């Protein structure tokens, strides 16, 4: 594609004067050295850090998965005992859901959304720095506990009473519960930043109808985070209170209820799946549009489908509880919702196929990963329909059938698009292309390995193999399919190694391909690759959903933003008309200090309730430091103030 560039994105770059650029550079740059590393508020640096950290947790979760597959490769295996296996499957689930899947989607949002909507930084940049630190500390705490052999062992869902004070002895379940608190605080912060950035910091002219589908997806994800996460924070906090100060929220002997936990957890837990899935749908749309050489078919339908998925996603949590004694009439509502949520996704699939059909597909690695979605995710969605039926669910619930289903949905629906996204945006982040041949190896090993690993699990589940068993008797006859699954897992591991090699090699030696190697149409490609600290200069004005395609000779621009302060343009919610200028804060150590103080409080409260009391003092002090008014800003505000 690079052979013929239909537009040169640098066309609009030279409009800025170099003196201006230097001043912008100075204003927006991150201080050098370790101090800069600790204080930066640049969404690109934080986004990259977020992505790399989440990827490390993906590798950790993957190693745990490999261990589980080795244990299950043959019947009556004694490689891992039940104690270790239970910790490992708990850590695998917790890592993949809380430390990889949700954070990496947020991380992609943190990096891409400000570029996509054409602004110079994410809204609330210090909160953004804070959210990364909190996430990192939560992950480190969980893995420290695991490596000290006091990691959680009651599943990523931590059902009470097994996770309660009576049966979940030691501090294992507390580490799990507190990890949740860390990730949720981080997720809520990012959600607020993304919503504000998309709603208020869009480029002039980017009315709601022109917002790229990925940005829409990030907004829907963020709203889901805001509505879903409080449920699980409530759950994890009440669990810790039951365990630490003897409340009886979940203790049936004292009027509590074990079923309450399941409602609270799944009210969050099911939307969580869509929190992971919806951003991936946005990535699908970005990649399909670029490689079909046309906008995604049915933009309005696509946006409505994202929103509908987000709303219906809150109406089906009870389908995780069909085997409990929730009355059948109540369960039926959830059957209907669980089946109908397939409709918006089906419509998106049809629209994408229509896009490919009426477009001009270009077969590059990102598109391959995206095409795998049409097999893997669709299969996972169809098994999801089976789980939506109450009676059929009572047969396959909590078996390997569900293990197969959820991996088809989450790997096919999120990880495959995500790998496509890595290949697609890698040149944006580094200025270099990932190797195409390695990309194909990466893809085919992953695709074949994935199906080998997870397809047999459908049959295992139907043949009676429950989930979360550390082994199984030889007489059950499950050995062969399990061995096949383990071989498949090995291929996936090989594929991930290829990817890592590709990234490590190409980040220094990959082909330099200019600013817009795929000749894509959205704003993130309107600046240099990698982007400068200030993202854009000058700030673009857009007149369509794919501005770079429509104005191949350069975009109109906004002038008048200060180049000596970190000023961004705030636009109106619907039309994106210029509204006012807003100064964003610069680098600061306070987010890190606040995160450290809050982390100390969270970790301490695992051991004593007094940590909440004494720990809140440093938290309050750090927050006061963070929000302490600056002299210069106060003077400016006083000067601007109009007396009544």
């Amino acid at each position: 594609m690079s052979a013929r560039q239909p537009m040169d994105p640098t066309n609009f770059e030279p409009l800025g004067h170099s003196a201006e650029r230097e001043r912008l550079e100075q204003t927006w740059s991150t201080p050098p050295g370790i101090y800069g590393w600790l204080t930066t508020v640049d969404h690109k640096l934080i986004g990259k850090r977020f992505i790399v950290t989440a990827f490390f947790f993906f590798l950790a979760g993957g190693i745990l998965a490999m261990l589980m597959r080795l244990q299950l490769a043959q019947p009556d295996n004694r490689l891992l005992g039940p104690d270790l296996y239970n910790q490992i499957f708990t850590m695998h689930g917790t890592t993949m859901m809380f430390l990889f899947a949700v954070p990496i989607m947020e991380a992609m949002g943190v990096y891409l959304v400000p570029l996509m909507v054409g602004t110079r930084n994410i809204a609330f940049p210090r909160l953004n720095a804070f959210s990364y630190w909190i996430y990192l500390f939560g992950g480190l705490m969980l893995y420290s506990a695991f490596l000290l052999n006091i990691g959680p062992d009651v599943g990523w869902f931590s059902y009470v009473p097994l996770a309660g004070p009576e049966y979940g002895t030691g501090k294992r379940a507390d580490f799990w519960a507190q990890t949740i608190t860390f990730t949720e605080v981080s997720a809520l912060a990012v959600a607020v930043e993304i919503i504000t950035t998309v709603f208020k910091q869009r480029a002039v002219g980017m009315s709601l109808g022109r917002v790229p589908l990925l940005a829409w997806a990030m907004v829907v994800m963020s709203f889901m985070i805001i509505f879903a996460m409080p449920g699980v924070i409530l759950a994890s906090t009440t669990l810790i209170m039951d365990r630490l100060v003897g409340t009886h929220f979940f203790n049936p002997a004292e009027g509590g209820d074990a079923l309450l936990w399941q409602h609270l957890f799944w009210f969050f837990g099911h939307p969580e799946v869509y929190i992971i899935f919806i951003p991936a749908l946005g990535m699908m749309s970005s990649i399909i549009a670029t490689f079909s050489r046309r906008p995604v078919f049915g933009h309005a339908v696509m946006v409505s489908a994202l929103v509908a998925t987000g709303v219906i996603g809150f109406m089906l949590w009870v389908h995780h509880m069909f085997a409990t004694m929730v009355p059948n009439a109540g369960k039926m509502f959830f059957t209907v919702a669980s089946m109908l949520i397939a409709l918006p996704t089906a419509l998106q699939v049809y629209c994408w196929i229509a896009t490919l059909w009426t477009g001009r597909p270009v077969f590059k690695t990102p598109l391959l990963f995206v095409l795998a979605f049409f097999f893997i995710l669709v299969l996972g969605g169809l098994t999801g329909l089976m789980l939506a039926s109450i009676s059929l669910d009572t047969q396959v619930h909590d078996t390997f059938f569900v293990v197969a289903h959820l991996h088809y949905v989450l790997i096919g629906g999120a990880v495959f698009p995500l790998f496509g996204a890595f290949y697609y945006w890698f040149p944006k982040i580094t200025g270099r292309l990932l190797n195409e041949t390695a990309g194909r190896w990466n893809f085919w090993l992953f695709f074949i390995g994935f199906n080998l690993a997870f397809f047999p699990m459908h049959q295992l589940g139907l043949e009676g193999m429950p989930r979360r068993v550390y082994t199984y008797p030889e007489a059950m006859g499950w050995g062969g399919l399990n061995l096949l699954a383990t071989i498949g897992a090995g291929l996936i591991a090989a594929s991930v190694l290829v990817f890592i090699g590709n990234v490590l090699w190409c980040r220094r030696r990959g082909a330099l391909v200019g600013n817009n190697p795929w000749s894509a149409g959205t704003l993130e490609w309107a600046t240099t690759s990698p982007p400068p600290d200030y993202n854009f200069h000058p700030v673009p004005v857009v007149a369509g959903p794919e501005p770079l395609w429509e104005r191949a000779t350069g975009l109109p621009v906004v002038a008048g933003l200060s180049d000596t302060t970190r000023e961004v343009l705030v636009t109106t919610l619907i039309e994106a008309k210029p509204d006012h200028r807003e100064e964003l804060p610069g680098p600061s150590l306070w987010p890190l200090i606040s995160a450290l103080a809050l982390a100390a409080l969270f970790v301490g409260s695992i051991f004593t309730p007094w940590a909440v009391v004494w720990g809140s003092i440093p938290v309050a002090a750090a927050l006061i430091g963070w929000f302490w008014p600056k002299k210069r800003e106060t003077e400016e505000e006083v000067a601007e103030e109009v007396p009544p």
Partner: protein
Amino acid sequence: MSLFGDPHFAWRNAQSALNSAGPQAARIEAYWWLIFAVSALALILVVLAMFYALFHSRRRSDLEPEFRPSPKLERSRGWVVGILGAVTGVILLGLIAGSFATDQALESFTAQDALSIDVIGHQWWWEVQYIDPVPSRRASTANEIHVPVGRTVALTLKSHDVIHSFWAPNLTGKQDLIPGHEATLNFRADRAGVFRGQCAEFCGYQHAYMGFLVVAEPPDQFAAWLEKQRAPAMTPANPSQRRGQEVFLSRDCALCHTIQGTEASGKTAPDLTHLAGRKTLAAATLANNPSTLAAWIVDPQSLKPGNHMPSHLQSVRLGGDGPSGLLNQEDLQALLDYLGNLE
């Protein structure tokens, strides 16, 4: 290493949702095949459509993006997408109707004249109580549920500790046992056979080896079995067995286990009154024969790590006339003789 040393036990298809042995499981299996067929067809069509789109996309020689596609073409494709969406909606409604019909059918199976059995989940075994209005006609057993062919069985499910889930896929779907709640589950076996089931809700260390058997037998055979279960345990028939009973009653065994007709009345572990009549040990983990029983008594912790039965490995190794509480070889042999007689 196989915990079932006995090749006689092969459970393939004995714990399968695709090998129904009663009307409940059969209804669910029928719905499974319906939704499987619809899904397989849908998947094939989507993949074919994708390939069609990829290879019949409009041939253009250049890569110039078409940012404003022709409205006429878009409209005609819009119709296709719209119709597909409508068809998808109708199919989904059909599947919902099928699901409801299956649920209704399961509800409508009569539970009149049902055989009532209480099943209580423990970490990591199943207590089974045959209910009868006359207290002396009740019977208690563990990990093995006998049912008459052709008669509905009504299980009342309770949990003693954490959440478990009762699942015998050849007979019906699973039902959770949640502490503080009682649940019911009805099924009927329409053919004789030995079916296996297993706990399906993660419940701690030995969730993997919390199995049970459902033995479906002709009504008269079942009645005879139940009659036998109601009786107290066999009395020791020879000196070795008598010594074995002494060992059982004087050591830690009787603290947890019950043997009807003796002073042993512990309630936290399986009732052993008719142990020798059972097919398996340790919740369908081991075939029940003298050597597995010996291995289990001596070292349950290596066979099923983390379970609540204490290990007697140290005692047996020390052997001889060790201090009270230790089990020597002769005691062990006597104990096996005694337990082997508890038909």
